[in-house]
């Protein structure tokens, strides 16, 4: 219940201003354009770097999205509305996580054509496999990101603390996503790379559990 309320609220806030999505998409597009330029010298090698490029781009995108998601809570102390409400704080975490997951996925889907167009990546050759990786990785990113943002963005130096705490924790996720994407692009069957998916799912599961329980302790000032 509370979970849905918060999820819907975050999505509505986003639809109203469209700011996170705009930021994320434009940012992704800019990075992709840069990549296209940076690699114009060696288009042949591009393929081997593509998975890394994709996930680096999405990482930065995720940080920008998180900044907005919690920045909005602070503006008029609106977060206090959530904190004083009779609901499990774990639900705040889950709701904001779910909303962020949806936004991140949306931003990625919108920027995907740019990857395919400008970097000439044959992602459409294995759409389900890639979709699977995208969804599962985003779940993991959303879980870790929401937990970390929920605490760092409540403190004065929040915007700087966020990437610093987040990046090391996300590195294993990035690696798994990159390796899995690599395998997909190389045309390997699922059995060859399903352990990366398992790793990502484990990350997701562990952080959802941790977040649900810890969030109560880190929400209050």
């Amino acid at each position, binding site marked *: 219940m509370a979970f849905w309320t918060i999820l819907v609220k975050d999505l509505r806030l986003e639809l109203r201003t469209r700011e996170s999505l705009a930021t994320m998409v434009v940012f992704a597009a800019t990075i992709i354009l840069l990549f296209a330029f940076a690699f114009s010298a060696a288009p042949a090698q591009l393929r081997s770097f593509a998975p890394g490029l994709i996930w680096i781009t999405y990482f930065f995108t995720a940080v920008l999205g998180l900044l907005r998601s919690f920045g909005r809570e602070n503006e008029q102390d609106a977060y206090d509305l959530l904190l004083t409400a009779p609901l499990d704080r774990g639900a705040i975490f889950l709701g904001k996580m779910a909303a962020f997951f949806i936004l991140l996925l949306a931003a990625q889907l919108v920027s995907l054509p740019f990857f395919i167009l400008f970097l000439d990546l044959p992602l459409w050759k294995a759409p389900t496999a890639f979709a699977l990786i995208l969804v599962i990785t985003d779940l993991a990113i959303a879980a870790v990101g929401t937990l970390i943002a929920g605490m760092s963005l409540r*403190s*004065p130096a929040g915007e700087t603390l966020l990437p610093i*705490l987040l990046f*090391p924790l996300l590195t294993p996720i990035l690696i798994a996503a990159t390796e899995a994407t690599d395998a997909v692009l190389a045309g390997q069957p699922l059995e060859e790379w399903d352990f990366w998916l398992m790793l990502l799912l484990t990350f997701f599961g*562990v952080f959802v559990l*941790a977040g649900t329980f*810890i969030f109560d302790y880190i929400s209050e000032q």
Partner: protein
Amino acid sequence: MKSFHAIRKNQVLLGITLTVALVNLWIIYQVAPVVVEQEMAQKIFYYHVPLAWNTFLAYLVVAITGGAYLVTNDPKWDTWSLAGAEVGTLFALLILITGPIWATPIWGKSWSWEPRLTTTLVLFLIFLGYFMIREFGGPYERSSRYAAAVGIIAVIDIPLILTAVTWWAPEVQSHPQMEMGSQPASILNVFLFSLFSFILILVYMILYRRHVGELTYRRLTQQGGANHV
């Protein structure tokens, strides 16, 4: 409150720790067999691996006491967490130093983006973040809670990171993953003694750091709080 070394048991602990450390140094230098292909370089193993294991131990202390702090809100647990984190991170730094020292003659280069090395670096960076949130996360009462949460997150991250390594594409693995149990007794015994020595060092350092932490806490409380920054 007394200073740390004014307490009898701590003097004894320090004595034992120092003695064992010196004996350990002598054993490693004199007694441990020289591995043929690696010569003296291999002996750093007796530092490198115990340091790594003790790092995990220290970080476990951080997570457990951090959890206790969150639940009880008792600052005593926070001083334990902080002590564990500082000593653990010092040890982690030492892994990151002894590793490359060993690597330079063995691999011919001091660093490679290889799973175990990278994940160790990641762990180290997570704990740098831990200290940053303590420093910049708001007043002590809040930042210490955040730090406890980061400590817990870091520790549930450790097994994930470590197991991830075994799944890694084998062609990029260059860090050895030997089974300690299958080592010859001559190496295993020296290793175990060194491990014991480092556990003593860890315990001593954590106790000492915790004591200082408690003194600082009391002093600040008595003088009516710290300056806001």
